[in-house]
């Protein structure tokens, strides 16, 4: 906690609020806790944790007690479905690598019993969690039997076809609550951290993390906002660029660049002709292409980026994964777009097992 406090200072109003929440939760002074659940706390606490109530000391454990008071909770997920979670989840399955990161950052990593296969595994502690979902021949294959066998009490799934819709229905039909997460933009990532936090009884921690992320975003944006806005081609694959208004396009804009987009909100392909015409100032290869190979493609020598040696390889995972490390992706992107500007580096969100 101490390491986080300096980073929280001098943030905007949201950060300050979250700071108050965090301090309130950690110091467990009931009067200072602005949690909305403060009022029903006395009435529900005995019924929610009947077994621990007699043995519990007069001053209850800091985080467990307010969290327990929250349940049962009904949350609206990113697909608009009302999801009711009866009690604080203890066996969580994450079908999204980004959600796995969020859960570990929230400190409930030890309650994650199954996860989606993650080839860019993060955090390292998650390697102990078995894969319940594999990327199988171009399709996502979720092992529902394993979810049932693990007695999961909360499943976090990916929206926008991240997890197949029929799989989500199947799990719900089995009586297991499924929270579907899909962030169409950066704000969506922040609200998803909070949504997952509420679902696992870690609302205050989630507020703190999203505030840290927001603060880090604001710091990067402030550093680059007055500079030039070079045209950036972010290569997702050869012939593929971010779609208009897409998450990646927003990240490039936030990092102080002007994204070269596909010209469509749904189609991500960008023909070589359109790319040459767009004449980007900076080319970031996020698809594993090597700079030496890419610059040999037909006509590329005419582009400003190639002429000025502004072609670089960049790590796509931190930039495009909608999880708690997203600000690090923005910092990476901003540093690549503005090599002459000192980009503020926020300390990473620690993964608590």
């Amino acid at each position, binding site marked *: 906690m101490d390491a986080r406090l300096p980073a929280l200072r001098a943030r905007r109003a949201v950060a300050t609020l979250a700071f108050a929440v965090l301090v309130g939760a950690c110091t467990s002074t009931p009067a200072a806790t602005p949690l909305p659940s403060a009022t029903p706390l006395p009435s529900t606490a005995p019924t929610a944790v009947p077994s621990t109530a007699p043995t519990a000391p007069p001053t209850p454990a800091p985080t467990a007690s307010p969290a327990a008071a929250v349940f049962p909770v009904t949350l609206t997920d990113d697909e608009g479905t009302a999801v009711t979670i009866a009690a604080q989840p203890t066996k969580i399955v994450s079908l999204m690598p980004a959600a796995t990161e969020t859960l570990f950052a929230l400190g409930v990593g030890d309650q994650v019993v199954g996860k989606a296969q993650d*080839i860019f595994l993060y955090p390292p502690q998650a390697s102990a969690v078995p894969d319940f979902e594999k*990327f*199988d*021949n*171009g399709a996502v294959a979720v092992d529902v039997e394993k979810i049932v066998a693990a007695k999961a009490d909360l499943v976090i799934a990916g929206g926008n076809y991240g997890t197949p819709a029929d799989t989500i229905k199947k799990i719900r039909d089995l009586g297991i609550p499924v929270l579907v997460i899909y962030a169409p933009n950066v704000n969506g990532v922040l609200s998803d951290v909070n949504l997952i936090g509420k679902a696992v009884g870690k609302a205050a921690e989630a507020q703190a993390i999203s505030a840290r992320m927001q603060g880090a975003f604001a710091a990067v944006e402030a550093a680059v906002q007055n500079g030039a806005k070079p045209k950036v081609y972010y290569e997702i*694959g050869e*012939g593929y660029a971010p779609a208009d208004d897409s998450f990646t396009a927003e990240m490039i804009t936030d990092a102080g660049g002007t994204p070269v987009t596909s010209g469509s909100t749904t*189609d991500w*392909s960008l*023909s*070589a*002709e*359109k790319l*040459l*015409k767009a*004449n980007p100032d900076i080319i970031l290869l996020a698809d*594993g*292409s*090597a700079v030496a*190979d890419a610059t*040999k*493609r*037909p*006509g590329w*020598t*005419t*582009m400003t980026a190639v002429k000025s040696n502004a072609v670089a390889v960049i790590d796509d995972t931190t930039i495009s994964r909608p999880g708690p490390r997203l600000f690090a992706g923005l910092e990476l992107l901003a540093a690549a777009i503005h090599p002459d500007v000192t980009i503020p580096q926020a300390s990473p969100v620690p993964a608590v097992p």
Partner: protein
Amino acid sequence: MTSGVATAGGTGARPWLAARGRDRRFWLVLGGILVALAGAVLGVAFGSVSVPFGDTVTIVVDKLLGTHLSTADAATQAIVWDLRVPRVLLAMTVGAGLAVAGATFQGLLRNPLADPYVLGTASGAALGAAIGLLIPLHFFVFGFGLSNLLAFVGAVVSITVVYRLARVTGLAPLTGLLLTGYAVASLLAAGLTMAMYLSGAALRQIFNYLLGSFEQASWERFAGALPIVLIASIIIATRARSLNGLLLGEQAAAHLGVNVERERPLLLGLASLVTAAAVTVSGLIGFVGLVVPHIVRLLTGPNARAVIPISALWGAVLLVYADLIARVVGDIPVGVVTAIIGAPFFLILLRRARTGYEL
């Protein structure tokens, strides 16, 4: 685009079908050349970025004659000269090659369903390309990456294996070749499925290869494919007499003075080489090699002397227009376009064919 193909192909004009073969051949050649030239002009003039026609002309003239008429910026010049011109030329080369290879395989194997991929070439090339994409080794030799080189190797190796295996079966030569080809292709397809299963992030690239595309066209690729396709096609065309003889059966061919033992492997090898060159530069483009030779045969009769060169011409025409449509509409695989514009046309011809059509 479709009207250009239809008019010159002669569907609309019944008298053409009734006309004598030699006249029809004349019109098919003349019409094919004109339509191909028009296709080349359209292919260079249109794309996903609009370039004024005057700029297109001056850029091409500048590059060909070394003049400095064009005032267009470097990007526009690169779009026209480094992207579109090699793309059009490559589409024509591949179209011509696939049609010649298809006509040769159909004649050699006396099988109307034979296409350039019939003896496992496609599966071998696809498996090679997939393996090339899975190996994290990036290098380019003369514009060709590892996957291209392995595709070529895969195609050549698979046809060699099929031919060798077929020779040791006790079956009649043609049956043995077709069945061996089918068996080897199935085995390779299983390997491809496994490679795709294991591919993860490279899956899209493998899939793109299977669909075929000219998106990667470049002068280097054109320069790599052209000599193989051109030389092999010319040799095949000069062997038209052998092809005609083999069409009648081995014994008849031998009686006509065709050295069957020498000519068959030679023609098979040449057609396979053309196919391998085509799949290396453009991926697997279906339909052209199967249907163009049939269309030509329906219109001119089965004489290989006419079928081979006219198929080459119309194969080039079909692909140059199909690629143009794929580019202008955006993000459609060229193989889908060839089927959409070629299949109805083929069906119309089949309906109108009066006499029994045979190879």
